[in-house]
């Protein structure tokens, strides 16, 4: 038996059971194209009147979208009534397939899951062959929401009494994931609010600084953070309840008194040197680095098993379990992120700090964590410092030994101290959740001040006033390049080529392209600037091949789309998207008419030349 059903046989079965039209979701563009080639090797074809009907629709569409004419798959579509639909195709071709599908002219469309959202593309049956998709260079399981978007295309209102989702196995399928997706409820939306440089500039352009915190508080991010504050607030209330019996005694703050006394006493007897204070960043983190806390270290998620400080070590250490199942020792300062997520487990005093079952359970839990786990913003504060490094004092300065409350204090101290530490931790968490966004805003505005886009009082400088109009990824790089006059008297082709290099974030391979010496030098410079900004903004891919391809398209206005596409290994749809995104970037530069009139002119001229043939078909 083959590992997966043959596409031709699949369509046959669907036709026989009257389950067409169908959308068949496949794992890759290549799989979709191969399915169509499988049909091309077949004999048979549709009845002539259907072939004719499809050809007619395509001809009509070609009036508005000339690039449909002569599309290599046109005949196959008309002959077999099947088509492929994926991001490697031109938008015009996708529009044609969608229109044919809406009219019910096709029996099957082989598509990738990028079709899932937003395209109006219904069918009687949806065939699912996979349970995971490639996201950001890695495979991950489809979410419930995604599975329901896919399956939901089955059954057209007014055209079907019932819709079907057909699941057919392939080596890439996990039926549990699919079944849960079909029968479960979609995931909750988690805010993905990020504060970008353009956001800071635009907010400060329109609003005074003291309004900003209030505006950020209106975000869904803060709404959800407040929800988490409520939860913490509840546990804080419980702790306060538990702390009732440990209120003021002979001295008001007997817990600290006893702690200092106790430590001083021990130190006195052991004559240990006072430990070095931790650096402030680490010190602020320490209360959160408790067993069960999920953190990010260089290579991904990990969970803390214990915190300790060895005799010879200056800094606190962590025993952590990584998602791969490996256990490592890591200095506390190597923790990149602390998440607002704790995996509960019972700790043990000896290696491996919990039971083996717990270990494997934790490992599993780690792999199940969503990639967008909320980060716990940790604020470094000064108070912490003093607390951590209690200055050694001599015991005879304390009243404790003779105090009437001494027996009670001795007995209760351990419990009371733990409660109070918990309380402090929660108060810190709440504070962090409440002020996190504002803090991140301040960080960004600090950088903008450093670069001269904002004054010390957070008003826009003349530079900031135009820079706020660049509202795309890599905005800092682009505005810095403009400020250092990297684009002075530049040719439209060169400007567009550089923008293409900055805009393109896809790593599908292209082919080597010839480029002008000017572009080569220019890209070198841009890369140097991008690298120098790396600690403030992630550098772009700056692929030379896409830059060169863009340069050719503009510097050779007679170059046809067909000839251009032939030069690269990139799919037609990818080249189209590259150019569309480049135009989008150029159009932002075009808005700098007042501050940089000649640069804006160059951008307009580049856009005008770029918009020809296929790129003119759609707005």
């Amino acid at each position, binding site marked *: 038996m083959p590992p997966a059903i043959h596409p031709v046989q699949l369509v046959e079965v669907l036709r026989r059971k009257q389950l067409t039209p169908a959308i068949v979701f496949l794992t890759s563009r290549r799989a979709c194209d191969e399915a169509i080639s499988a049909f091309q090797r077949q004999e048979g074809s549709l009845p002539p009147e259907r072939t004719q009907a499809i050809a007619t629709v395509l001809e009509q569409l070609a009036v508005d979208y000339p690039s449909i004419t002569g599309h290599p798959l046109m005949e196959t579509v008309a002959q077999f009534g099947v088509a492929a639909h994926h991001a490697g195709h031109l938008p015009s071709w996708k529009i044609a397939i969608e229109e044919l599908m809406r009219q019910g002219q096709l029996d099957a469309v082989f598509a990738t899951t990028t079709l899932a959202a937003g395209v109006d593309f219904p069918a009687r049956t949806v065939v699912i062959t996979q349970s995971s998709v490639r996201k950001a260079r890695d495979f991950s399981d489809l979410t419930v929401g995604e599975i329901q978007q896919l399956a939901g295309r089955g059954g057209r209102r007014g055209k079907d009494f019932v819709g079907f989702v057909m699941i057919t196995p392939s080596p890439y399928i996990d039926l549990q994931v699919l079944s849960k997706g079909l*029968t479960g*409820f979609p995931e909750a939306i988690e805010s993905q609010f990020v504060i970008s440089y353009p956001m800071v500039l635009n907010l400060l*352009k329109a609003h005074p600084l003291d309004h900003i915190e209030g505006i950020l508080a209106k975000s869904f991010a803060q709404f959800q953070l407040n929800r988490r504050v409520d939860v913490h607030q509840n546990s804080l209330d419980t702790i306060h309840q538990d702390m009732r019996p440990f209120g003021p005694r002979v001295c008001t703050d007997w817990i600290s008194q006893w702690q200092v006394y106790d430590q001083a006493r021990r130190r006195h007897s052991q004559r240990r040197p006072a430990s070095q204070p931790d650096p402030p960043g680490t010190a602020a983190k320490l209360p959160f680095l408790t067993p069960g806390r999920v953190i990010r270290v260089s290579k991904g998620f990990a969970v803390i098993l214990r915190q300790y400080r060895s005799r010879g070590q200056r800094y606190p250490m962590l025993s952590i379990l990584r998602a791969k199942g490996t*256990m490592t020792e890591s200095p506390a300062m190597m923790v990149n992120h602390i998440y607002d997520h704790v995996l509960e487990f019972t700790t043990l005093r000896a290696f491996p700090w919990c039971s083996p079952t717990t270990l494997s359970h934790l490992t599993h839990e780690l792999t199940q964590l969503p990639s967008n786990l909320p980060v716990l913003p940790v604020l470094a504060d000064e108070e912490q410092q003093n607390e951590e490094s209690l200055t050694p004092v001599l015991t005879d300065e304390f009243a404790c030994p003779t105090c009437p409350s001494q027996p009670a204090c001795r007995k209760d101290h351990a419990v009371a101290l733990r409660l109070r530490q918990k309380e402090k931790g929660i108060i810190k968490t709440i504070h962090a959740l409440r002020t996190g966004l504002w803090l991140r805003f301040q960080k960004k505005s600090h950088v903008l001040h450093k670069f001269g886009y904002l004054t010390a009082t957070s008003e826009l400088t003349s530079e900031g006033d135009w820079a706020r109009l660049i509202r795309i990824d890599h905005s800092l790089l682009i505005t810095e390049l403009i400020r250092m006059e990297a684009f002075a008297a530049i040719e439209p082709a060169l400007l567009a080529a550089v923008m293409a290099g900055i805009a393109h974030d896809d790593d599908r391979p292209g082919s080597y392209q010839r480029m002008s010496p000017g572009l080569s030098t220019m890209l070198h410079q841009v890369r140097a600037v991008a690298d120098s900004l790396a600690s403030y903004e992630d550098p772009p891919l700056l692929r030379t091949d896409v830059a060169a391809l863009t340069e050719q398209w503009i510097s050779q206005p007679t170059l046809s789309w067909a000839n251009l596409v032939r030069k690269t290994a990139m799919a037609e749809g990818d080249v189209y998207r590259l150019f569309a995104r480049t135009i989008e970037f150029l159009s932002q530069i075009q808005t700098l008419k007042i501050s940089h009139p000649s640069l804006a002119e160059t951008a307009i001229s580049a856009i005008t030349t770029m918009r020809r043939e296929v790129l003119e078909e759609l707005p």
Partner: protein
Amino acid sequence: MTNEELTGLLQALPLRQLHDLTRGRVHRHFRLGKRRLIEVILSLPPESRSLLEVDVLKPKRQSPHQPSLENSPQPFVAKPTQKKGRGKAKLSASLEPPITVSELLDGLGVPTAQPFHADPWQIEAISKLATNDVIASVPTGSGKTYVAIEATRRALEQDQTVIYTSPLKALSNTKYMEFSQLFGADRVGILTGDRKDNAQAPLLIMTTEILRNLLYDAASGQIDVRLNTLGLVILDESQYLADPERGVVWEETIIFCPSQARLLLLSASIGNPQDLSSWLTSIRAVPCHLIHHQNRSVPLRAGYLHPDGVMVPFFRTRDITKGRGFTFHPETKRLLAQYEGETLGHRNRR
């Protein structure tokens, strides 16, 4: 454990269980066949290997989350989050005989054309927009576009400006054509980064990013579109709020949407529409009205198609029910076990 011992133990396990064992330990484990999986397991670093050995030696227990498909004589019931109290209802459900293929395919066909009657939820959404912001979170294919169109019609009748946004240019183009046909090309405009076609039209189509930029420009006093008469802003596919890169744009748009304009959020797949609605209510001038239901207008059924072309029902029951776990159809279970066995054999022969 020596390599031979471990290999022996692993060989004896069904593939499914190997996948369970390697989940989280081996990258892309689900792409590998049995032989490859075993090879990879043997080359794991010592710590994770010893953990895995512990798991292999554990007495085989059917965990509710990762049940093994093979060797399970009783009907296979997966219970994702089942509580004890539900047990009874579950049992009786699984005692009903599983449906047959003809039952699965029964009733298939094309309904005769019916005069159009708007659904109650559609009417509710449109009328509520007079006084509220509205979120419509209803399944795919329910007719959210109808709500958008009717709400637009009403706003246009009152000489208001309407902005429709979608996350994708492709969708914007489709809607541009659809709305131009409905309302007349002269009354519809489309805005992209570099092009403004008919930007003074009362109905404007754009991507959400363009609207966000427009709102920023308006906030700093440079308006080039008629925002003062803005009466309705439609955000289609608003589940994009959860997009890691672009989600923030939806938040910015909602925060800065002028208070006199009504917001209409359309989406099919949101797990927490109530949260979204409370959020809108907390920051907007008028309360948000939430319309949320899970009833598909065309019922959906699931089938299993074996690579040899045999078709059987996927679940025991015909309709897909939400939130109550699931039970595979016995035939699906049998065929799948066979599939795993055979593809395994297929691989071993090579």
